């Protein structure tokens, strides 16, 4: 059927555009030589190089050749198509040519970054030749347009989730906010005063949570989890299960709440904002949505048993534990007290569960290591140190750090003030981390020793009453969701964006966005920025009322199909069905593809005994020609 199309009767005239990538490619590949080699291939009418094909002058080069009628097929040889395929498709579209009459050869990631010299040039020639061969067989395609639901599911009711939900609602998009606990506010509820404004985290949570509760456009489901997922951007179907918290969770989470109902609408310190009474019965429902925003947040690192004495000595606690203690401590004494004991000297240790180095630090039981910096702990630690010094002037503070990372606006000031208020700083190398031991003599329970690089490697030993560990962030365990939705996860176990600068809040799964600390450690400001950036992407995506999907989906050749149903059996996403049709007056069954669901995986193509099904833009014939070109090269 497609063989009669007008475009394929006009002889393909291929334009080939090879990018230097400012040396990234041309330092290793002789791009002029590649252009020369390719020029000899029949059907290639132009073969150009440019320092940056993706730049405006580069794109114009292609557009001029299209507009002048010189070419009707385009091959760009540059970086990975994931970076700039869309850039070039748009450029071609602006020149009034079908953007799918174009193929992309990756000669950077697959060539110049891994090969050098003549072999790199030879491989580039081969890759481009294969792309040219494929391009000659390309046919014009149109993107698949599907209606999009003006609705977003936000997973997680912490700061990121609340911020995103409110923003989306303000733009007229209905939101379902799904939170697994009975509370809103997430980990921010475990903070007290915030750097650098000294604003109360509880107040900020209350401000956002209350607005969300009062917003008729936001439907909040606490005690809820996502248990099922299907569909595609614009039309996801998400199964949400709500269940009453079990007695244990109730006891554990709802600290201090005597009656659910009386606490509704209140911010409970160090617990969260309580938006509604907990459900009393289990309920499952399906929500149709256009976009999903992940705001699943983080959890704090739990030190291993014995790590800096944690678990061995009751006087070793984490920073979140200490912050909660301080919030409740009365400031009417010259000494801080803890567990009824006077604290004369406290040691704070940075980078616990962050910046771990293979070979120096131990991996956890799952063989994981937190090699990243958790970004927020330095300022939080210094803030706590300052608070001790200001409220309890007789309590000494020793601070053990690797690098002080008070990078943010107003944060350096805390570092200065901590030094001025006589917090004593000791700097350690990771291989000489502080050692915490029980004090056998004297009246201090613990002693801490370290090789201090600030005093040029002097061995320092100090008696202390309390040790506070500045624990880092880890992504919340969401392996269930990750497996269900097949989400990309980085080696740091945080969700992995497509590209940190080009598409920073998008996952490779179209229509699933990222907000906040599920992506990387961030403070509240950065989290809110990220959430708003995700919201703006969702708003742009849903604003048109429809979404356009790539047309690389399976298509059935009805003349060849005999209705074996082999394709139906193997399709992993149920995109193919057998439909009754009349052929020559006879009622038969033939395969039919739902292009919105089809992911273009090609399993059906491999299975069909009659070659009656093919993926558009990636046909068997195109592959054959590519292989021929590679073999011939």
């Amino acid at each position, binding site marked *: 059927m497609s063989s009669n199309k007008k475009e394929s009767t006009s002889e393909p005239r291929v334009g080939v555009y090879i990018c*230097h*990538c*400012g*040396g*990234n490619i041309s330092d290793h590949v002789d791009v002029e030589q590649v252009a020369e080699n390719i020029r000899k291939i029949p059907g290639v009418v132009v073969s150009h190089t440019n*320092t*940056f094909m*993706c*730049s*405006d*002058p*580069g*794109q114009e080069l292609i557009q001029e050749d299209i507009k002048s009628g010189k070419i009707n097929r385009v091959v760009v040889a540059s970086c990975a198509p994931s*970076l*700039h395929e869309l*850039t070039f498709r*748009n450029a071609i579209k*602006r020149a009034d040519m079908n953007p799918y009459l174009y193929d992309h050869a990756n000669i950077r990631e697959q060539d110049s970054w891994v090969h050098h010299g003549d072999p790199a040039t030879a491989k580039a020639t081969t890759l481009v030749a294969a792309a040219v061969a494929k391009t000659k067989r390309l046919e014009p395609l149109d993107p698949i347009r599907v209606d999009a639901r003006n609705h977003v599911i936000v997973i997680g009711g912490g*700061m990121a989730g609340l911020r995103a939900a409110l*923003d989306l609602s*303000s*733009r007229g998009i209905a939101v379902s906010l799904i939170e697994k606990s009975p509370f809103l506010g997430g980990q921010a509820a475990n903070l007290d005063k915030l750097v650098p*404004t000294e604003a109360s985290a509880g107040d*900020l949570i209350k*401000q*956002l949570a209350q607005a969300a509760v009062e917003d008729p456009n936001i439907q909040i489901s606490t005690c809820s989890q996502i248990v099922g997922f299907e569909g595609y951007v614009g039309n996801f179907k998400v199964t949400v299960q709500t269940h009453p918290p079990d007695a244990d969770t109730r006891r554990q989470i709802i600290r201090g709440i005597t009656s659910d109902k009386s606490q509704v609408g209140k911010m409970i310190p160090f617990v969260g904002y309580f938006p509604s009474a907990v459900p009393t019965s289990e309920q499952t429902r399906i929500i149709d949505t256009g976009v999903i925003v992940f705001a699943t947040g983080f959890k704090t690192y739990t030190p291993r048993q014995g790590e800096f004495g944690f678990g061995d000595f009751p006087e070793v606690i984490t920073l979140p534990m200490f912050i909660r203690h301080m919030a409740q401590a009365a400031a009417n004494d010259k000494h801080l007290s803890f567990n009824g004991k006077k604290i004369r000297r406290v040691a704070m240790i940075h980078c616990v569960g*962050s*910046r771990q180095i293979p070979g120096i630090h131990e991996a956890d039981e799952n063989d994981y290591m937190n*090699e*990243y910096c958790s*970004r927020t702990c330095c300022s939080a630690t210094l803030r706590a140190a300052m608070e001790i010094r200001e409220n309890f002037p007789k309590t000494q503070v020793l601070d053990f750090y690797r690098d002080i*990372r*008070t*990078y*943010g*606006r107003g*944060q*350096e000031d805390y570092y200065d003030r901590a030094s001025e208020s006589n917090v004593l700083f000791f700097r350690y190398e990771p291989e000489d981390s502080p050692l915490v031991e029980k004090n056998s003599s004297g009246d201090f329970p613990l002693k801490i020793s370290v090789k201090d*690089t*600030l005093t*040029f490697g002097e061995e320092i030993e100090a008696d202390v009453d309390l040790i506070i560990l500045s624990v880092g962030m880890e992504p919340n365990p969401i392996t269930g969701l990750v497996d269900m939705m097949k989400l990309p996860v980085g080696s740091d176990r*945080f969700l992995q964006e497509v*590209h*940190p*600068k080009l598409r*920073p*809040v998008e996952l490779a799964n179209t229509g699933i966005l990222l907000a906040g600390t599920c992506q990387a*450690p961030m403070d*509240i*400001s950065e989290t*809110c*920025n*990220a959430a*708003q*950036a*995700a919201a*703006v*992407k969702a708003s*742009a995506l849903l*604003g048109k009322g429809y979404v356009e999907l790539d047309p690389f989906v399976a298509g059935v050749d009805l003349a060849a199909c005999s209705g074996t149903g082999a394709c139906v059996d193997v399709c992993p996403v149920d995109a193919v069905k057998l439909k009754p049709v009349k052929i020559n007056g006879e009622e038969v069954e033939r395969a039919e593809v739902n292009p919105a669901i089809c992911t273009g995986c090609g399993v059906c193509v491999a299975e069909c005994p009659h070659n009656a099904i093919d993926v558009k833009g990636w046909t068997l014939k195109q592959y054959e020609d590519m292989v021929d070109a590679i073999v011939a090269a």
Partner: protein
Amino acid sequence: MSRELHFDTLVVGGGIAGLQTALDLADQNYQVAVIEKDATIGGKMIRLSKVFPTLDCASCITTPKMAASAHHENITLFTYCNLKSLDRDSPESVTATVTQKPRYVDPDKCIGCRQCEYGCPVYVPDEEQGNFNLRKAVHIPFSNAIPQIAVLDMENCSLCGKCARVCPTDAIDYFEQPEDFIIHAKTAVLATGFELTPIDQKPEYNGGKVQNLITSMEMERLLAPHGPYMRVIRPSDGKEPDSIAYVQCAGSRDKTLNVPYCSRVCCMYAIKQAMLLSGALPLADITIYYMDIRAFGKGYEQFYQNAKAMGIEFVKGKIAKIEQADNQYVSLRYEAQEDGGRVVEREHDLVVLSLGMVPGWTPQGVCQVSCDTDRFIKSSMPQIAPTVTDMEGVFVAGVAAGPKDIVDTIAEAGAAAMEASKYMTALGKQKAA
């Protein structure tokens, strides 16, 4: 009468923050005007070599966003323009007076052929290349500038008339005058970026006036694909350096320069440059003198550890004195923390000052938005809505609101676009009601 134009949002600044804001608004079908003081959009980012932590070339990431903005049907770019005033007249409207500086080249006629540039007899230090080489008095700023339109530098023009004679489209106009025009919009976003900390007042560094003592931005140019030398050599005499050093916190965390804050990017760009240098000059020794390494972003700490593993030397110590040594070497004096605290003097072929960031623009006398004590634009809700300022419907994005790297800038640009679109949605609702 001045020309009057109407848009939904005025974005001030065409760097990565402004462009991302404009794109995020335009994709939601708002009409956006971007005004940019330079002759090209792209801001500081397009002038960089590669960017951390992915080591993508800066052009690979910036040029597509520049091109997307230039071609977006909802975005209009105004380059080589200064913002004269920005006032809110009512909740529905801000009015900006914008001065179009004379390019002395008609943008509608210029086809970017560079004939004028080749013909021009005047050589002028090229500020786009750290003044390491010369450009012509009439020129296109750089090869991937947008728009590709020449600009004539009247201060350095002898009015010889050569460019006008060779121009095939008769685009040169020596008589052009600055021209004001008015932009009316509902909202504005300030994305005015940064400049490097000036260090001419720093006697310990000899005011920066030491041969082969260069700024980090100048090193970006030496490393960039279209750099002044197309390789890294000493500016004083073309020697390929054997030893290169970085002075961290040069112009940050320094109260004597009135820059007490951390500039957030210098540790990472120094590490990045060190990595690129060790690729370009495998035999060179590269040393980074630092106080604290602040590699806090996603993947940054791992980047830092990789640099250490590559053999880049990290020395803890604040540089106390920078002086010229013999043979155009640069001498650094510091207290070596890991060496018993003795005062050490070391000489390097080439020394880079890792300069910090100061605001690129001040609202003083232009618009009524407040700045913080750090002189960057103040956020009214720094935690839950960092891009909201104290001027109604005027938002801030990127380094204009304090130092930040490209990743954080792009996120904040999205946030500013969200705030601006929310503001306009609310206006629409009020109107409908």
